[in-house]
């Protein structure tokens, strides 16, 4: 298969970026999207040109490192997958593919397609944990948890922190990311103890870091590679409301 690629190139955070066009030819349909970029990069290196910088690591949809905006969608048009899980057979032969970095003021570009998502770490540092010390805990089976609750907690905990939600949201809100963590812990008795404090601290941090407000458009959940449900945002809002009422 052959493709024309329109790729965002940007030297560093301070420089102004722009699109550049490349051609890749003879790509097997079973090649993954990132392997296709590897092929492009290898030929750029041979020409003595700088390869396209992009983030990736596990290449199996779990680390959340890959983060490309492809043909106008975070992680490409297909639903429920990360960029590293896209295969070239999903694109028409001889088509043009546009590749951009996440576009969000909270995620500044570092180089080409690589952005700084440190803000997500900071939100979790503000309160996305259960305050237990190593070794001062009860037996694992001392707290029975209904299977349905554990399953729901796991659904929310599947978030890989890739940033697609904030990058997709027209307001640049990180609400789905925050809600997934709050919700995953709120579903478990261990997490409930600090539930209110956690929700407040994380939302405050999100606001402080310049993420926008959530207006419930649902665009985030539609682009989420892990299909995290927007219902978690409703749960976060409830937690947050009860936090406010107790203030």
């Amino acid at each position: 298969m052959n493709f024309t690629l329109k790729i965002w190139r940007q030297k560093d955070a301070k420089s102004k970026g722009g699109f550049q066009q490349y051609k890749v030819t003879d790509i097997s349909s079973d090649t993954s999207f990132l392997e296709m970029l590897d092929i492009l990069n290898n030929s750029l290196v041979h020409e003595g040109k700088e390869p396209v910088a992009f983030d990736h690591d596990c290449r199996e949809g779990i680390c959340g490192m890959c983060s490309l905006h492809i043909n106008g969608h975070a992680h490409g048009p297909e639903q429920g997958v990360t960029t590293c899980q896209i295969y070239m057979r999903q694109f028409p032969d001889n088509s043009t593919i546009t590749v951009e970095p996440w576009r969000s003021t909270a995620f500044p570009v570092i180089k080409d397609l690589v952005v700084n998502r440190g803000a997500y770490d900071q939100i979790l540092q503000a309160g996305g944990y259960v305050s237990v010390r190593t070794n001062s805990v009860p037996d694992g089976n001392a707290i029975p948890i209904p299977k349905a609750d554990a399953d729901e907690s796991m659904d929310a905990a599947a978030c890989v922190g890739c940033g697609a939600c904030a990058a997709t949201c027209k307001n640049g809100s990180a609400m789905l990311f925050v809600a997934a963590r709050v919700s995953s812990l709120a579903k478990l008795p261990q997490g409930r103890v600090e539930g209110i404090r956690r929700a407040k601290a994380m939302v405050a941090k999100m606001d402080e870091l310049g993420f926008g407000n959530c207006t419930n458009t649902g665009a985030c959940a539609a682009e989420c590679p892990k299909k995290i449900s927007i219902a978690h945002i409703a749960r976060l809002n409830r937690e947050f409301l009860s936090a406010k009422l107790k203030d």
Partner: protein
Amino acid sequence: MALKLDSKIPAGPLADKWSNHKAAIKVVSPANKRKLDIIVVGTGLGGASAAASLGELGYNVKVFCIQDSPRRAHSIAAQGGINAAKNYQNDNDSVYRLFYDTIKGGDYRSREANVYRLAEVSNLIIDQCVAQGVPFAREYGGLLANRSFGGAQVSRTFYARGQTGQQLLLGAYAALNKEIHNGTVKSYPRHEMLDLVIEQGEARGIIARNLVTGEIERFGAHAVVLATGGYGNVFFLSTNAMASNGSAAFQCYRKGAGFANPCFTQIHPTCIPVHGTQQSKLTLMSESLRNDGRIWVPKNIEDVKALRAGTKKPSDIAEEDRDYYLERRYPAFGNLVPRDVASRAAKERCDAGFGVNETGLAVFLDFKTAIARLGKEVIKQRYGNLFDMYKEITDTDPYEQPMQIFPAVHYTMGGIWVDYNLMTTIPGLYAIGEANFSDHGANRLGASALMQGLADGYFVLPYTIGDYLSHKIQAPKVKTDTVAFDEAEKAVRAKIEKLLSINGNQSVDDIHKRLGHIMWENVGMARTKESLTTAIKLIAELRKEFWKDVKVVGTADSFNVELEKAIRLADFLELGELMARDALNREESCGGHFRTEHQTEDGEADRDDENFVYAAVWEYKGMDNEPELNKEALNFEFVHPAKRNYKD
């Protein structure tokens, strides 16, 4: 100068060693802890749990990782589960049984005392993770669920769907975040350690490259903890994440740390077969699938031909024409034999011509029987995300047709030598998690790497490091403007300049692929004296070629992925040779190390307990010089090394 290998195994009965040791080692007072700095390199299960626990204790911790967030360390990708001796299933599991299975699974090439301690603290890990809010799978009664893994006849594996590593790492990362919030830990993501700094024979800090700006930075500390994971990527294609590497460990080896059993590599039996020459990595299909999946190839070569020609589908082949070769050869363990055994058995069938795809390098993993017995819904509940993943990659639906699988490089049991305290041969330098060699011998059982990483980080190192640091309470803050730091930084800069100046004709990946090919062909699943000698020669040649002909574009003082890869490959090109030398020295077959010359009549590994009951610990002597072999004898006081038998 030979290495001093004092394993510091405490005396006394096996079950009391750890308690006695803890009682005997020194502790550091809270006021003094505040004055002590610790560097932790790596944020996988080992590094994150250690950094968080050390921070809680009051030490000043700096933690480093290559990825843009600690949460993305390679541990995130572990799928299947984590072992513990809880005996929640009432199937007669115990600390002793977990210890025994692990020692036996490792083919009697690990230390009894370390393995026993691992089994002993395994239960605490589960409690810890539950308290952190890790959403482990539960039964309808609300209690924790278990599944079985290879090499065990009990059900002791705890799991969170097919994302156990992710959930455990998010737990450890949350603990780390708590300590970052509390101000005891400072995190340095996108920072790569490029050298260890030693003064007066002790670890004093590291030189790291800021991967965003390219700046070379110095960090001093009273102790350095290496938690940098395994080196499976020496093979280019493996199940490891792309940035996984052996460089930090190799830098420490160059500076005098012993490297133990480098040839012990685990080839995992259930991975998606290679599909072409452009592939960048291999995808694991979790071992948990062997709970319900049955592995087979056709009995008749005609059926193999028909499959390859596409004139028959696997489902067209009748039950009596299928060879469930693991069930046939190993009736007692069946599809749940340890990984090394399962991988070799697949190779044996494929070598005999029964491989089921065009390349002849694949066998079936079939869920037909399980779906008939349990229904599709149950199978979906158990393995849904793995089935989806398989379908995404291969475009075939495993609910309808069996999966095709083949062995791939997965894990490295070898690593930096450590004593019972997890300290390397360099005082003040510790190694934990996959980066050390300590607990898995010649083969690791499934679901025990996560256990080891968290055991080391939560429950062992926080105690043992105090014993060393108690001698440092009078020591001032480590200065980084010293000669040792100057020299280390200078060497790092010179290496980077050299790499950028070669401007040859081959890209880093071109050369890495060639190294991978040499390794897989000669230092892979079956090794011979001849193949290993060839490998040593070819790797040395390739290394020379690399230093003459590699092309690294970009600059030193910017975000430069090619440069990062080149630095890592330079180390792989020495590490690969070391692995081959170690494999050549070990004239026996044990666990994942199979020397074709040493096999029994029925093709099983032929271990040599007369001559090889030792850890081979290598000492660096320069890039083009042969390293020196040191031996740590393994004393079996409590179990008798028996021939591994998974047949009855």
